[in-house]
């Protein structure tokens, strides 16, 4: 195990606030994939997702003095990415939709399996993109990122019942869309 992996985010956040840029660089290395992945799943295209992740990680550094530490750095970063995604989406339609696996290809799967898989991913992408933003957000954070209802509520600034309600509606809509696709 790399020694760097043994120090927690809280330690690195504290050092980054003290002005140690390499502490923040370690945080970026740890969390940039999460930021990009959530951005990709919320806005649906690589270009916007990369911009959004970069903006969010720079904004997180600029706002470190205001980070109280009562949430984890990961949760706080999810919140920044989510809010910026909402702002970006509110400003207008996103560019070309891309699949949610980015450039991922499974080297084990054969061509037929890969094609089938791509079709399934396209169906999920389309179904997710059709959801209203609050429902898309809770699906991404809970079902894709594995956050608990309480954590999703913290990220979205809502309540657990509101998260649960949005998830119920989102799952039904997704289920119907995917049912039509099958």
């Amino acid at each position, binding site marked *: *195990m790399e*020694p*760097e992996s*043994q*120090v927690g985010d809280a*330690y690195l956040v504290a*050092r980054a606030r*003290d*002005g*140690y*840029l*390499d*502490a*923040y*660089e370690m945080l*970026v*290395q740890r969390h*940039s*994939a999460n*930021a*990009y*992945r959530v951005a*990709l799943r919320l806005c649906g295209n*690589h270009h916007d997702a*990369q911009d959004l*992740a*970069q903006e969010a*990680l*720079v904004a997180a*550094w*600029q706002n470190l003095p205001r980070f109280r530490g009562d949430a984890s750095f990961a949760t706080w970063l999810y919140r920044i990415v989510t809010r910026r995604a909402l702002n970006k989406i509110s400003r207008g339609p996103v560019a070309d939709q891309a699949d*949610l*696996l*980015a450039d*991922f290809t499974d080297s084990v799967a054969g061509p037929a399996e890969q094609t089938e*898989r791509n079709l*399934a*991913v396209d*169906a*999920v*992408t389309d179904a997710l993109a059709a959801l209203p933003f609050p429902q898309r957000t809770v699906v991404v954070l809970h*079902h*894709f990122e594995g956050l608990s209802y309480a954590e999703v509520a913290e990220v979205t600034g809502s309540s657990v019942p509101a998260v649960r309600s949005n*998830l*119920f509606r989102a*799952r*039904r809509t*997704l*289920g*119907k869309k*995917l*049912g*039509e696709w*099958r």
Partner: protein
Amino acid sequence: MTESVDEPPAAPRLLDAVALPCGAEVDPLLEQVADGRAEDLNAHQRGCVHCQAAIAEFAALWGPVAETAASQVPAPPGLTAAVMSQIRVLVRDVWYTLQTTELGTIRIAARIVAALARDSARMVPGVRVALGRSTHSRLAALAEKASFGHSYPQAAVGVLGRTAVVDLAVAVTYGDSAHAVAREIQQHVIGTLRDMVGLQTVVVNVKVDDILPGEGDH
């Protein structure tokens, strides 16, 4: 007695209903599947064909979502570098003057010195994590103060002169003498900066702020 079902329930039709014929609500069943608990049947579900059929149908329906969610999505190459590059633009660089002659001035960014110091500190036995600080309000203030009365007219504000001040935050291995490790870091870093950069006067402040278990203690 086993209940009979005329035909398997189609998922879209299932999702139009609030409850199954057995009285079980549909949404909790979909939630159970979506949360990866399709196999965790309760006592009622274990004996109910309606619930079992609905769970099987939802599992097939939710499969592509679960597969997409489980896939790896790496960060684009260069994202970390782009973020740090943008941040470094926002941080005003402090510079050390290495040499000033009639040919011109040679300077090195303090952040490079800090990175070299950090890497040098990481090579000292007992050091587990080392962080180097290059730009900080205290350092920037020192730089401005130092440059104000600098003997070389070429020295601009933000140039710290020829004395490098490096702050290192380190985590050491549990059981090692923190003091001895810190002294070793100072000597090693001073030697590295003298040999690699040519800085003759180096102040190395070491802060031991964490202790980690030894390599074999996991």
